[in-house]
């Protein structure tokens, strides 16, 4: 996935629906986790004084969440597992909202219990699951793979609930379950761990029929270690655990259904019902009251039992029930109530979640007592909260995309966006509103308006358009050109509630045609695949909510087919191009085949045959394209991000824009060409577009801003794409920055800002390059799609890129921390302040991501009150930022961007610099672990480089440089700075600092540095060399060399590139020192950068030579082979490339341990094509 993707949510005024189906409080009582029918999870912050505030929304499941449970020992890892209706399971880290592990199993779980037995178990423990399948599944808590099952020998059936019994006396854990038919079963847990791990069947130890159905909960009383509370829907019962004899049955009154229960204390139980009531009962022991031998049950020893069974039987009977029932007010539709109860620092809390999304908490007193007259006392509600409360409270953040139009309108109330689509090629956001108007706006400026302060730039209504034609809510939108380049660029299709479909000219706002379908509301508009053509034109397919489907031919302005025989909602549309069939799959798994030409129903199939028909269409996908349209199936409907935008710029066989269940990150991945900015409308309920997600592709943004500098330095424009290439590019970019530092006037920056400043005097060259670049870029992007206005597009592109970058930076800057800094940023970077803290999204993997909710900034308890409205992601950011500043060498901050008097130039320079910085940080923090060790290695290498300083200075520089390259970094400082910064950031990764935190910290530090320098030295073109101590020459040298490089580079671009392999005499010295470095790196893997102080000397040199191995010889040979080229060419470029390859080869050698020279050469040869490509 693209790790550089950053998401920002633009929430509306209305909170997304969140019908709670599962709820839990984490063990530290700081977070409430809820799962919803829509498939999202919500994390709520629970403050020490029991205040709730929603924090994050976790996207990932595509179906209703059925249960939640902790997935680890919570004090060690704050992981929670969630299971969904469709068998998806997911483990989340609830502190940062990341998805840790996911799996999809063909089981629907209704309850999960985490079990870990530290001294008998290796690994992370088990998740014991039960649900709509036979017996109990054992799932590995780390990998989510099924380990085994607990099987029952007697009448196996579904299990409806379970609990653990941990007996202190015999140090044995048991698993108690109740099946749906009401059979209680007991398995030995701890003693069967081995058998389970060896995959042997484990059968139940005991089983007993309990005589009631619909068991909800089973709980073991840990206080007495004797009682067993079993809650059925119609009654609850107390059993004696010793022999499972029934002690008491309490039947529900006035038609209430029990939903669960918990043991509060020794003889106190809490029972709650489905309608949100709960009751606390005291279980009185008449025998004990009578002062019999049994004072308490807790001290009950088993030895008495066999000795005097009869007496015991009697004592158990007189359990009298004195109910101190607690009645919660509010009769709610249906509620999930759970109870979590802890010792001292924590509260005893009863909590419930509702379908409406409301969470309610009750603080249960330690000793609940009834009123004096014996009547039940009512415990008041402690807190209650909904998502909407969060939205109401933090209104400033909730800025809907269309709210900006309120200024253009009379009414103050904003309209709900009923549908929305983003057209990437035009950067337009099309919103269909509730009242039937359609708004077309520049997406970027709309986003800016939503997020930033004082953006009045929207007055230019030239780009904004209001289309009036529908008189009911606009329910679906489609921009056909985005799907097929052959269609007219100005067409836009919209459908409304009254099943009227309008074809618009998007540029003029003119209505081209109105189709009246005379069916239900149009739920989605789809287009036939490109190669499906009927009479030379593609067909629009309208799916209506009255289960009918209509086909429209746009060119002929004609309705081809109205298919209305479907009894169930349409789930799938497929096209059969050869025979002109429309295949409609319905929610009841039946299939209707319509002949398009005649409009007749050809066939209707159900069951197996229907499946086959749909499947065989799947097979033919390569031959004939049929878009797989998941039109809001029941389970899909809830989640589902509509990704019109992303698929719309894909050509060829591709799922077309239905309501596809794909989350944003995946969406962004599948894009065939990258865009730095994207808007995703998210439909969280079936009617309204709840909010929009802005996606910033950092990597792409950096890339997009960089090509101009690249083109002006290096004529070989042809190298686009490829990893190496990007790195190379970024280095080149850095060089330009450095060149700026060396007070060369930068063409690059000018080229960048050219569109902004408006094409002033530019060298022919630049223009040519620009054009070239343009062409390439367009090729890359448009992939053959016709562009009508190439020139203006380019201009727009650059503008957009800069604007996007600015918006992105605005979103990340910690506004409100330091007024002065804010002002400086606004003035010098020309970016605007945020209206309020921004809601960032965090993608953890393809389908899984989290979004902050408005008001998230108030959640973290460590935040002080005064910095509440501050866009600071966490307290940690400040520390990190300080650390970063500390490592940042002083002279690094000063030089950049200050030399030039041209403001806009400097501004964009800085922005580019900052962006590349951020990109690097994301890369580093997101780096997978395998890579991390390599980086460590490279650190070591670099540290050694430093030691080798004296032998060959430039080589050293180059190699550290190339080391950076290898890691895809953009750093270009002195090696020390580089190193320590990299180290720092890598440390962050290990400390599980979130990407966003890291980014913000770095940004803050960089901006602070930058602004400090601005404050102090308004005009300074000289890099300040800080000469102090012994380090001075180290510090000073690199900038110089860089200056030289820059010059060399210029030379290189003016001159021609020399052929790659020009033989020349080897320079022994260089190769020696360099390979020595690597050898060292290999030899002392444990030594760290700390060794820097150690004097780098000849002895080491020699010791290395003495230690040369066969592998080492290969290395030397390689260097001999390669160095001549470097020397002759004196082309920096090639040096860089070679180092790249050398390091590659070395690593290959190190890892694969090659022993022969030819092999090494073959590697080299493998790499060669890449070189040519690069050069």
């Amino acid at each position, binding site marked *: 996935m693209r790790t550089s993707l950053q998401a920002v949510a633009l929430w509306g005024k209305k909170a997304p629906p969140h019908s709670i189906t599962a709820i839990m409080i984490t063990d530290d009582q700081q977070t409430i986790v809820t799962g919803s029918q829509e498939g999202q999870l919500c994390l709520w912050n629970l403050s020490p004084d029991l205040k709730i505030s929603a924090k994050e929304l976790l996207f990932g499941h595509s179906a209703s969440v059925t249960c939640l449970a902790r997935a680890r020992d919570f004090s060690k890892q704050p992981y929670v597992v969630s299971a969904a209706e469709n068998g998806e399971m997911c483990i989340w880290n609830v502190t940062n909202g990341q998805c840790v592990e996911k799996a999809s199993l063909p089981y629907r779980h209704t309850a999960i219990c985490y079990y870990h037995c530290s001294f008998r178990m290796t690994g992370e423990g088990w998740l014991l699951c039960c649900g709509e*399948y036979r017996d109990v599944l054992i799932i590995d808590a780390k990998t989510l793979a099924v380990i085994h099952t607990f099987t029952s020998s007697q009448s196996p059936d579904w299990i409806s609930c379970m609990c653990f019994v941990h007996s202190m006396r015999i140090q044995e854990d048991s698993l108690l379950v109740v099946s749906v038919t009401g059979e209680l079963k007991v398995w030995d847990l701890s003693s069967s761990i081995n058998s389970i791990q060896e995959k042997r069947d484990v059968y139940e130890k005991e089983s007993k029929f309990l005589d009631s*159905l619909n068991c909800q909960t089973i709980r073991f009383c840990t206080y007495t270690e004797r009682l067993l509370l079993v809650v059925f829907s119609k009654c609850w019962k107390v059993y004696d655990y010793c022999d499972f004899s029934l002690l008491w049955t309490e039947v529900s009154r006035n038609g209430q259904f029990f939903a669960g229960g918990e043991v509060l204390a020794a003889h106190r139980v809490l029972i709650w019902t489905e309608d949100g009531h709960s009751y606390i009962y005291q279980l009185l022991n008449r025998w004990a009251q009578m002062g019999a031998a049994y004072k308490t049950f807790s001290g009950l020893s088993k030895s008495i039992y066999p000795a005097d069974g009869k007496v015991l039987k009697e004592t158990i009977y007189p359990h009298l029930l004195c109910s101190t029932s607690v009645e919660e007010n509010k009769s709610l539709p249906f509620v999930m109530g759970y109870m979590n109860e802890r010792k001292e620092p924590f509260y005893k809390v009863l909590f419930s979640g509702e379908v409406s999304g409301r969470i309610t908490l009750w603080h249960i007193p330690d000793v609940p007592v009834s009123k004096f007259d014996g009547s039940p006392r009512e415990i008041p509600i402690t807190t209650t909260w909904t998502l909407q409360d969060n939205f109401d409270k933090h209104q400033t953040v909730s800025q809907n995309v269309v709210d900006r139009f309120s200024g253009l309108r009379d009414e103050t109330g904003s309209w709900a966006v009923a549908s929305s689509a983003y057209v990437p090629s035009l950067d337009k956001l099309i919103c269909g509103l509730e009242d039937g108007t359609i708004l077309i706006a520049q997406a970027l400026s709309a986003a800016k308006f939503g997020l930033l302060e004082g953006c009045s730039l929207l007055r230019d209504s030239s780009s904004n358009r209001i289309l009036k034609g529908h008189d009911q809510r606009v329910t679906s939108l489609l921009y056909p050109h985005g799907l097929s380049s052959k269609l007219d660029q100005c067409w836009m299709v919209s459908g409304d509630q009254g099943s009227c479909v309008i074809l618009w000219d998007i540029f003029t706002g003119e209505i081209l045609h109105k189709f009246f379908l005379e069916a239900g509301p149009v739920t989605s508009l789809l287009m036939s695949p490109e190669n499906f053509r009927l009479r030379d034109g593609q067909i629009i397919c309208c799916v209506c909510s009255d289960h009918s489907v209509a086909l429209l031919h746009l060119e002929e302005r004609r309705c081809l087919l109205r298919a209305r025989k479907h009894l169930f909602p349409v789930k799938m549309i497929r096209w059969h191009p050869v025979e002109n069939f429309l295949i409609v799959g319905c929610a*009841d*798994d039946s299939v209707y085949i319509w002949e398009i030409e005649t409009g007749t129903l050809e066939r209707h199939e159900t069951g197996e045959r229907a499946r086959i028909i749909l499947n065989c269409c799947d097979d033919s996908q390569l031959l004939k394209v049929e878009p797989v349209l998941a039109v809001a199936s*029941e*389970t899909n409907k809830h989640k589902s991000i509509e990704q019109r935008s992303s698929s719309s710029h894909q050509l060829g066989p591709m799922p077309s824009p239905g309501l596809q269940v794909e989350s944003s990150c995946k969406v962004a991945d599948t894009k065939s060409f990258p865009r730095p900015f994207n808007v995703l409308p998210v439909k969280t309920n079936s009617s309204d577009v709840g909010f929009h997600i802005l996606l910033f592709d950092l990597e792409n943004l950096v890339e997009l801003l960089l090509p101009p500098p690249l083109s002006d330095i290096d004529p070989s424009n042809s190298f686009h794409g490829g990893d190496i290439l990007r790195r190379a590019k970024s280095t080149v970019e850095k060089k330009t920055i450095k060149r700026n530092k060396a007070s060369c006037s930068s063409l690059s920056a000018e080229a960048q800002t050219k569109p902004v400043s408006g094409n002033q005097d530019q060298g022919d060259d630049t223009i040519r390059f620009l054009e070239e670049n343009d062409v390439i870029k367009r090729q890359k992007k448009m992939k053959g799609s016709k562009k009508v206005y190439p020139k203006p597009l380019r201009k727009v592109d650059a503008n957009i890129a800069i604007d996007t970058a600015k918006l992105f930076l605005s979103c990340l800057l910690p506004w409100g921390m330091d007024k002065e800094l804010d002002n400086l940023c606004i003035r010098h970077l020309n970016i605007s302040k945020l209206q309020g803290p921004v809601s960032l999204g965090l993608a953890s993997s393809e389908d899984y991501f989290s979004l902050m909710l408005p008001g998230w900034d108030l959640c973290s308890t460590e935040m002080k009150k005064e910095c509440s409205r501050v866009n600071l992601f966490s307290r940690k950011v400040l520390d990190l930022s300080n650390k970063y500043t500390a490592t940042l060498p002083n002279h690094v901050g000063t030089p950049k961007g200050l030399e030039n008097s041209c403001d806009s130039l400097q501004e964009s320079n800085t922005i580019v610099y900052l962006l590349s910085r951020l990109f690097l940080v994301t890369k580093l923090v997101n780096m997978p672990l395998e890579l991390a060790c390599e980086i460590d290695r490279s650190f070591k290498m670099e540290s050694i480089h430093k030691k080798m300083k004296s032998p060959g200075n430039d080589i050293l520089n180059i190699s550290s440089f190339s080391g950076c390259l290898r890691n895809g970094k953009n750093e270009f400082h002195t090696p020390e700075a580089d190193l320590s910064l990299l180290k720092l950031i890598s440390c962050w990764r290990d400390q599980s600092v979130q990407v966003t935190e890291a980014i913000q910290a770095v940004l803050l530090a960089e901006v602070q540095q930058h602004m400090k320098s601005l404050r102090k030295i308004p005009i300074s073109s000289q890099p300040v060399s800080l000469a102090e101590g012994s380090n001075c020459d180290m510090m000073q040298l690199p900038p110089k060399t860089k200056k030289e490089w820059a010059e060399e580079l210029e030379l290189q671009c003016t001159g021609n590139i020399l052929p790659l392999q020009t033989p020349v005499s080897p320079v022994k010295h260089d190769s020696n020192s360099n390979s020595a470095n690597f050898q060292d790196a290999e030899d002392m893997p444990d030594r760290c950068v700390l060794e820097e102080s150690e004097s780098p000397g000849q002895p080491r040199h020699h010791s290395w030579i003495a230690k040369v191995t066969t592998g080492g010889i290969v290395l030397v040979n390689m260097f001999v082979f390669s160095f001549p080229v470097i020397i002759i060419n004196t082309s920096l470029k090639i040096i860089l490339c070679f180092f790249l390859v050398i390091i590659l080869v070395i690593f290959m050698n190190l890892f694969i341990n090659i022993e022969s020279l030819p092999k090494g050469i073959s590697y080299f040869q493998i790499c060669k094509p890449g070189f040519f490509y690069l050069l």
Partner: protein
Amino acid sequence: MATAMAATAAERAVLEEEFRWLLHAEVHAVLRQLQDILKEASLRFALPGSGTEGPAKQENFILGSCGTDQVKGVLTLQGDALSQADVNLKMPRNNQLLHFAFREDKQWKLQQIQDARNHVSQAIYLLANRDESYQFKTGAEVLKLMDAVMLQLTRARNRLTTPATLTLPEIAASGLTRMFAPTLPSDLLVNVYINLNKLCLTVYQLHALQPTSTKNFRPAGGALLHSPGAMFEWGAQRLEVSHVHKVECVIPWLNDALVYFTVSLQLCQQLKDKISVFSSHWTYRPF
């Protein structure tokens, strides 16, 4: 078409009244009807606890195919379990008659029936929570209930209509092969499943592939019915299916149950449609 905008106050009032009637009267009527249908369906499954207690009655099914009489089976179904089975197999080569029966102490659970039964009882439970005394306040509530019920019913139906596709090693490993009293010879595999309304018994005759065989060994994947020639590996031995016999018998009450499922699914969908007709008039309502 009368739009929400154009509707006059009077029309609006009528619509509201109609919707109230729908929520308060019609929904309960439909739920009542659904419950009756599902009760009837669950009776077919002989749900324990739903009236008649005690051991479910035994039904004998004689399985045969119209074409050949090489395999004959008499299966006894007791609720969701096969309590007895007698399989007569006429070997094609030597016309030798083989007879197998279940061990006396063993029962074979037909998981498909159990799952379908459980899904139905879940649906009934969902409906039972909303009896006449319950007042629906919004349409969304009804839609959610219907979604939940339909999910259970669809699953129940799918459980019967889509038997598991097993691979040959899975069939060989299943406990069913170990259920027979004269243990099954190693060259026979037996599988029992429900397909739609039919109880199906498949008998695979195998022969071992010689290690030297020139035949291209390709293990067969999962399938409902493996065809002759399917190969698999079982305990270091490579086997090939030589003959397949499939016999089946219609279980009448399964047929009824399937019809009930379909009818109740349609009822649910119709109720949903009724609700959503109104929802288009009150978009401002939290539907």
